[in-house]
């Protein structure tokens, strides 16, 4: 049941860390990638302090809250991370980023990715997926958001009406979709 992530440079001698997901899959990842997940980093460092890490890659770090399908996507995203963290400085770049975010755009995927990134304390990922989600809220209508995320409005009818009236002025110029 081993699931070794691909290494573009097999001769590389970088250390590997093994992560074990909730469904008992094993992922062998490069240390540089694993260290992006602060939860893993913390665990790894604690192990080191306990003098157990001398065994190196034989340490298996359990991630009971993360499913293998989600971890695989997080790792692949992590590898694609741009080297510089520079903010998009022009419109075109922002558009490219938006398109990239759309690839992760289904609400079911996002809820898993965000929960996992949050558990792993993976900052860049959390920021990226949060923004991917925010793209589906910005300038949209309440109906669109409810439909997209599959959320049922749970306000009492009188509350719903009250909020509607209160915010009626705000529903000018939202996107059609």
């Amino acid at each position, binding site marked *: 049941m081993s699931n070794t992530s691909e290494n573009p440079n097999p001769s590389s001698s970088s250390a590997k860390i093994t992560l074990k997901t909730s469904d008992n899959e094993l992922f062998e990842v490069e240390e540089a990638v694993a260290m992006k997940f602060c939860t893993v980093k913390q665990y790894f460092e604690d192990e080191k302090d306990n003098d157990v890490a001398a065994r190196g890659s034989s340490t298996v770090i359990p991630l009971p809250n993360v*499913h293998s*399908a*989600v971890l695989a996507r997080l790792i692949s995203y992590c590898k694609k991370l741009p080297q510089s963290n520079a903010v998009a400085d022009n419109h075109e770049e922002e558009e490219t980023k938006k398109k990239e975010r759309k690839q992760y755009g289904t*609400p*079911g*995927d996002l*809820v*898993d990715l*965000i*929960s996992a990134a*949050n558990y792993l304390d993976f900052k860049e990922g*959390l920021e990226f997926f*949060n*923004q991917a*989600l*925010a793209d589906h*809220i*910005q*300038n*949209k*209508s*309440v109906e669109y*958001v*409810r439909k997209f*995320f*599959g*959320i*049922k*409005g*749970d*306000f009492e009818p009188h509350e719903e009406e009250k*909020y*509607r009236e*209160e*915010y009626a*002025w*705000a*529903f000018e*110029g*939202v996107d059609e979709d």
Partner: protein
Amino acid sequence: MRNKSSSVYRWNNMDYDILVKIFMSLNVMDLISVVSQVCSSWRSACCDPILWKKLDLCIQISDSCIYAPLQSDAWSYSVSNNNRLMNILKTTSNLSQGNVTRLIFNFFEYVEDEHLVYAAKRNRNLKRLALPIWSRLTVRGRRKAFKYWKGLESLTIPDFKSPMKLMKATGTNCKNFSELKLTCNLNLDYALLLSMCRSLRCSVFGPQ
């Protein structure tokens, strides 16, 4: 990854802290017109104090009006604009529940006495206020509003007549006041004022 029904279930019960983190990347208009009305768990996350520390009313024009004119007052006065600002203030104060510490008004929208006084009554914990245009405010209106802002520390304002009077009003009401930012030239009145209030830090952004 998962079947649809489980994701549906999870969006209604998403962790509060994660929701707040997501909402942090949205602007005030998205919060009031969408997020707060989706469902009760989104609404309660939408009221989190961290989202309302800074209330930036400039943001409402950023997308819809890219080619904003460069002079103040450019959006000529109309009843609908006036109501709009009032509506935004009312709606945001329902959600922010007095947690705003930094309030930035819009350079292109008239601020009248009723707006400022309403904002003051509902946001009494304000520490920083940016009021880039205030030609429609009366002295009485300003004085009334500042009475509510006892904790005010910093003020950004354009040119105004008789700065002494204003400083007297802020000085009596706001004990921690320490920073004045001006978007105009520093004239003799201000120079005199500054020489009298030595503890005041003052910056000028106006044309030289």
